[in-house]
């Protein structure tokens, strides 16, 4: 069988950067079609609102590349926000440390369960998703109590900014760069790919499979908590009704970004592009006056299905050449 390197390369580029290309194309189309789309204000609003999803999606990218899934991030996001608002009455440090410690602990426990007992990530994090939302409701009187942010330094973390962008956007950018280095240029990152690509093989090659998995879920928990913290700072309160179904949006963004749900392949750039793509779709639908935002979900869903089909075809093209 002869392989055609050209075709294979094309399919690999499409796989890795397809989301970025579609994002660019949509941005261009949007700019031409709607006058108010290509304004600095609109761009900033897309980027700002995407940054929270993006932080969670960075953690999810590691989880999915390692061959797992984390359904608890939506609950951790809202839990982190409520804890941060609650903690803000004791100052900036507690507002940051309390939610991160709690969400990190949940991630760690989930990771240990998955790595040490071999339970399916789907089940473990589903339990986490339900349990953590329950915890959040417990500390907020069934969601009736909305803690308000008392610390102004903490509030500035979510609302202040530079050059028209808020701090969460800059934090997201920093995290994205750090995650890229971590994934591509450290032994840990290589281990994540190896575990997701061929777990028994990785074990035979000496990869610490269990430890890698624990770190991945710990990271995902921490990042979901952090996103919740920043969101609470932005809203100046610990809103209890957020984050329902957020994990699915995040997973969708990661997969649209070219990370394989089966594990072993993907990257941060794709994920960021995937998150922005969903943000742009939302914005475009808002521009079309007579469409409700419910259509955003229809379009996102269709797009996701399209991407998964494309990934299968591209994967086949790469294998058979």
């Amino acid at each position: 069988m002869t392989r055609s390197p050209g075709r294979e390369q094309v399919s690999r580029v499409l796989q890795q950067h397809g989301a970025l290309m579609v994002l660019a194309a949509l941005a261009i189309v949007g700019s031409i079609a709607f006058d108010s789309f290509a304004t600095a204000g609109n761009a900033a609003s897309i980027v700002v609102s995407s940054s929270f999803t993006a932080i969670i999606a960075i953690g999810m990218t590691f989880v999915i590349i390692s061959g797992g899934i984390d359904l608890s991030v939506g609950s951790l996001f809202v839990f982190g926000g409520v804890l941060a608002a609650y903690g803000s009455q004791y100052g900036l440090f507690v507002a940051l440390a309390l939610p991160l410690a709690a969400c990190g602990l949940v991630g760690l426990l989930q990771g240990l369960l998955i790595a040490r007992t071999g339970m399916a990530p789907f089940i473990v994090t589903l339990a986490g998703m339900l349990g953590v939302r329950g915890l959040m409701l417990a500390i907020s009187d069934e969601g009736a109590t909305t803690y308000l942010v008392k610390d102004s330094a903490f509030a500035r973390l979510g609302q202040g900014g530079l050059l028209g962008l808020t701090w969460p956007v800059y934090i997201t950018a920093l995290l994205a760069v750090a995650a890229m280095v971590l994934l591509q240029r450290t032994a840990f990152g290589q281990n994540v790919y190896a575990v997701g690509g061929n777990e028994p093989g990785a074990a035979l090659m000496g990869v610490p499979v269990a430890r890698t998995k624990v770190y991945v879920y710990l990271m995902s928990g921490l990042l979901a908590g952090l996103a919740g913290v920043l969101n609470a700072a932005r809203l100046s309160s610990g809103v209890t009704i957020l984050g329902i179904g957020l994990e699915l949006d995040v997973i969708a963004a990661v997969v649209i970004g070219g990370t394989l749900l089966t594990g072993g392949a993907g990257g941060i750039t794709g994920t960021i592009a995937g998150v922005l793509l969903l943000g742009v779709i939302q914005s475009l639908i808002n521009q079309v006056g007579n469409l409700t935002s419910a259509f955003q979900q229809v379009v996102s869903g269709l797009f996701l299905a399209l991407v998964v089909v494309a990934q299968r075809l591209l994967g086949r093209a790469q294998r058979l050449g």
Partner: protein
Amino acid sequence: MSQSAAPVLEARQISKRFPGVVALDGVSLALLPGEVHALVGENGAGKSTLIKVFTGVHRPDGGELIYNGSPTAFGTPLDAQRAGISTIYQEVNLVPMMSVARNLMLGREPRGRLGVIDTARMYGEAERILAGYGVVTDVRRPLRTLGMGVQQMVALARAVAIDARVVIMDEPTSSLEPREVETLFSVIRKLKDDGIAVVYVSHRLDELYEVCDRVTVLRDGRVAHTGPLAELERLKLIALMLGRDLDEVRTGGLTRFSRDRRQARDRDGAQPAVRAEGLTRRQVLRGVDVSVWPGEVVGLGGLLGAGRSETAKGIVGALPLDAGRVVVAGRPLRTGSTTAAIRAGVSLLPEDRKAEGIIPALSVRENIALAALPSLSRAGVVSDAKIDKIVDVFMRRLRIKAASPDQPVQELSGGNQQKVLLARWLAIRPKILLLDEPTRGIDVGAKAEVQALVDELAEEGLGVLLISSDLEELVEGADRILVLREGEVVGELSGDDVTEDKIMASIAERGAESDG
């Protein structure tokens, strides 16, 4: 190789038991530095278990492992690997989606500033290492985009690069092209010169005689023979593997097959029940022709890995073929479709009945009726009465011992499970039945019953293709035998030529391409 050198790795009286099975029973093997040691044996002989003891996957129940002169117990594969025992598995155990370089260097990537991987140096080093194995490729490409040969070389390079003193190769050539095999052999010779001990597991006799110094034959968990390979005749080696004494003159009579061999029928004008032509599958089958006439039992002989099961799977469409065609009763069959095969009346009783056959939690009744459901239903609605009738007929005819038809199949003995499967395939009234190791792992009584049944079915005009590692079963059960080796038919025996000796001689014949 010097006999006086101390062994680098030695197994002393190693035993390993699994529930219900003694996998290794007092196996001793000494591996000398700089030797290539062939490890051979048929299915269930204990090769894989021994390798897994060497590589830290299994811990022995008895005996000890001496490595570098001192007793050792490896807790995990990683421990064994760190100590210098590397393994190359049959299926390449790398990460297909990662690049060649990252696979090769995983776990020991060169670090630059801040502990971050120095990719330029990593690619350079990977290229340099692979060049030593005659592999020139873009090391940035994902591993899976390369040929199997190159992947195998990367695995080998990785195994050796971690300061291995012992390299274990489990069927390393099973997916290689002849040219790649040559490269592998030159690498093995280089390892030998460097004083590395190699354990070479393969069923390809030509290869064994080409690269191996000594051989250990395992059979039923025991060492059947160990010694220099060059002094051992091929025929003798095969006899050792199959557990047959060459001098033993066999008159047989232990199986329940009828003694009379059905004579080749008058075939002029008559059509074979199935005719397979030129079945080809990369690395597995190289143009196999098989015909089975109605009322005939055709045996497929050969060692493990010769392509027997693959031939059967190719015929029923369970193995995608690169080329070849299958004609059933004069009509060509769409290959690659088991549904088409079943409709045309071709049934396969697979080798691994647990994984590929029975559905453990379902009842005897449901298991039997499964394949026949389309013919037992009208407009998609299944007729219970019809099922009951068929189940009743087959449970009686095959003497299936179950408390009731509603007993879950997993509660039955192996022999009865096998009969349930047989009933399933007979229920679709096949024209041809392919039996892959129909009596493996079932008790003697059930074995005899299955054998008698095969005879009976052939008498009734069914064409049967019988695959068995049990030479006796093959010789007594088959009217005609095709001997396979490395995916090719290398001999056809019929009439008085159907003997164990002739089968072994046929397997032992030198492959034409490796002569000289």
